């Protein structure tokens, strides 16, 4: 059923919420500045609630079933996180309150910084960046600030493996760097020879995702970071796939200088239909002075009776603010709760089971789907969604057919170095039963691809809408159901 838009549901005169009449004398409205019309819909509360509940039912979600989007870490979001973030003491605090009224929030932020330092083996953390890509921009600006602070102005390039997320080159370009793409070798690692050849005095740094987007651990990571350091460059770690390394290996120990974390992937804060995320940036002690700020620090040490006094400090040579206020505090509460409930052993179990689940699926599927880089994977793996003897069937068709089997499809067409890529990340919170059903479905679909390809090409069959005309959407560009012209026509 097509759900009408809010504007279509509107009936003049309906109200969803009423507000009290002013308890103060009214003042004259500012002449010449008052708008003539406010073209917003008019609905009763029940209209609004039903509309959004109906819309919600058109979504697939982690709380409904397996959501194996590669590199997105769609793990289960514990419900206690939601309650914690909504505690009035947290949710109703204004960001600019005097610090002695918000010691609870500041303590939480300080402790989260410390926990993230310990988990990643880094020297300092800023919680300000709002998402992974935002963390990347922050990190690359730190690379730039570091070299500039040393008067080293000839470094103009950032090296990025061809398997990297598109955000890596985009963040580098935004920071004024030229991007040099590095090839991957046959095992899916960074091609060491190519790296050595590219490393010279013009290299500002390397952006490396480990495990990479093929789900493979960078086997030569210690060598890679050493080569870059010897050339005078810094190594940036894209923490998108950190879930596989919790308690297994720390980026700080592997030679990373800067790292962003995705609290919405690794630390279970919900993805919210596309955000908000949270992308704290961790750096070595040397780079701490360049972090965006202000960051939370202890202003006065505490004692056994008195807790410390927390406050803000701007790092000495900070790249500046990357966001208003202090970052996505609500997400920090959730991630902090998650870490508290796991401890060191629990976090290691998270990584172990994420990797166990991915390898189990890989083992069940590798005889049916071609795996171009086939070795023990980490939290995810990439299969080819195409067979030479089933022409005309593509990764997209497999993805859509999976919907008929009641699963969310994996990421497709990424990474770019695998043709017709299906990038599958089950996460640790899925049971063997769920994984088996998913593997059975993919195996059945592979069979269908050879015997009844039409079933795949016409999928999905039971969703509120079928495949959508993306060409029409891009050509006609209907981005809004209300236009200023309509107002003038009506007037």
């Amino acid at each position, binding site marked *: 059923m097509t759900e009408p838009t809010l504007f279509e549901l509107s009936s003049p005169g309906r109200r969803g919420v009423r507000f009290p009449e002013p308890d103060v004398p009214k003042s004259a409205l500012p002449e010449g500045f008052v708008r003539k019309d406010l073209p917003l819909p008019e609905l009763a509360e029940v209209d609004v609630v039903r509309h959004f509940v109906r819309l919600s039912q058109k979504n697939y979600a982690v709380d409904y079933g397996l959501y194996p989007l590669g590199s997105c870490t769609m793990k289960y979001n514990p419900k206690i996180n939601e309650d914690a973030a909504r505690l009035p003491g947290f949710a109703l605090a204004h960001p600019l309150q005097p610090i002695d009224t918000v010691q609870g929030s500041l303590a939480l932020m300080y402790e989260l910084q410390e926990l993230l330092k310990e988990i990643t083996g880094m020297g300092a953390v800023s919680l300000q960046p709002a998402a992974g890509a935002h963390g990347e921009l922050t990190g690359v600006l730190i690379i730039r600030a570091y070299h500039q602070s040393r008067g080293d102005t000839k470094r103009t390039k950032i090296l990025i493996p061809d398997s990297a997320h598109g955000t890596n080159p985009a963040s580098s370009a935004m920071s004024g760097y030229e991007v040099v793409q590095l090839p991957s070798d046959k095992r899916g690692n960074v091609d060491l020879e190519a790296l050595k050849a590219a490393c010279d005095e013009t290299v500002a740094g390397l952006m490396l995702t480990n495990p990479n987007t093929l789900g493979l651990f960078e086997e030569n990571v210690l060598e890679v970071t050493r080569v870059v350091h010897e050339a005078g460059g810094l190594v940036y770690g894209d923490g998108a796939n950190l879930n596989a390394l919790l308690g297994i290996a720390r980026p700080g120990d592997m030679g990373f200088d800067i790292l962003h974390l995705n609290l919405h992937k690794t630390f279970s804060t919900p993805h919210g239909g596309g955000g908000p995320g949270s992308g704290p940036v961790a750096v070595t002690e040397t780079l701490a002075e360049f972090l965006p700020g202000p960051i939370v620090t202890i202003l006065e040490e505490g004692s056994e009776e008195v807790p410390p006094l927390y406050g803000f400090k701007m790092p000495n040579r900070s790249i500046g603010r990357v966001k208003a206020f202090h970052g996505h505090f609500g997400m920090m509460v959730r991630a902090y709760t998650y870490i508290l409930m796991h401890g060191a052993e629990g976090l290691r179990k998270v990584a172990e089971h994420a990797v166990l689940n991915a390898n189990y699926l890989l083992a069940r599927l590798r005889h049916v789907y071609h795996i171009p880089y086939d070795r023990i994977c980490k939290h995810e793996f990439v299969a080819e969604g195409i067979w030479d003897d089933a022409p005309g069937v593509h990764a997209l068709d497999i993805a859509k057919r999976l919907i008929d089997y009641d699963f969310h499809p994996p990421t497709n067409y990424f990474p770019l170095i695998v043709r017709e890529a299906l990038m599958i990340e089950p996460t640790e919170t899925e049971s063997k039963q769920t994984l088996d059903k998913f593997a059975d479905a993919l195996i059945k679909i592979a069979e269908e691809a050879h015997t009844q390809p039409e079933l795949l090409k016409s999928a999905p069959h039971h969703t509120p809408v079928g495949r959508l005309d*993306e*060409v029409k959407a891009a050509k006609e560009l209907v981005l809004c159901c209300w236009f200023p012209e309509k107002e003038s026509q009506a007037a």
Partner: protein
Amino acid sequence: MNIPSDLKYTTTDEWVKVEGNTAIVGVTDYAQSQLSDIVFFEFQVEIGDEVKKGGVIATLESVKAAADVNAPVSGKVIARNESLTEKFELVNSDPYGEAWMLKIEMSNPQELDTLMDATAYQKYCEEREH
């Protein structure tokens, strides 16, 4: 795959038609079929601009890909096919005809020698199919 024999080709899938000292430039049938339905076209240079061989002169977008169109030769832009910014579908329907993009007055006609002829380009396309 349509590959007219009277044109020159680049490794980035542009074609060139030479008329005297003028190079007429567009993208090949192979390029448009790889991109599928074009949903947007935009010039990156103005008439009168000097372009260098390999420099970006326009961008094309389909729903799943974006591609830069590069100058096959160096020179001065003397004409643009303005109709393309509205009717970008022409790139799909008539890549060698109505979808010509730019005319460049060549500053270094020797650059033409670095381009492929139809036979070489055909082979080049076939190689990439596998």
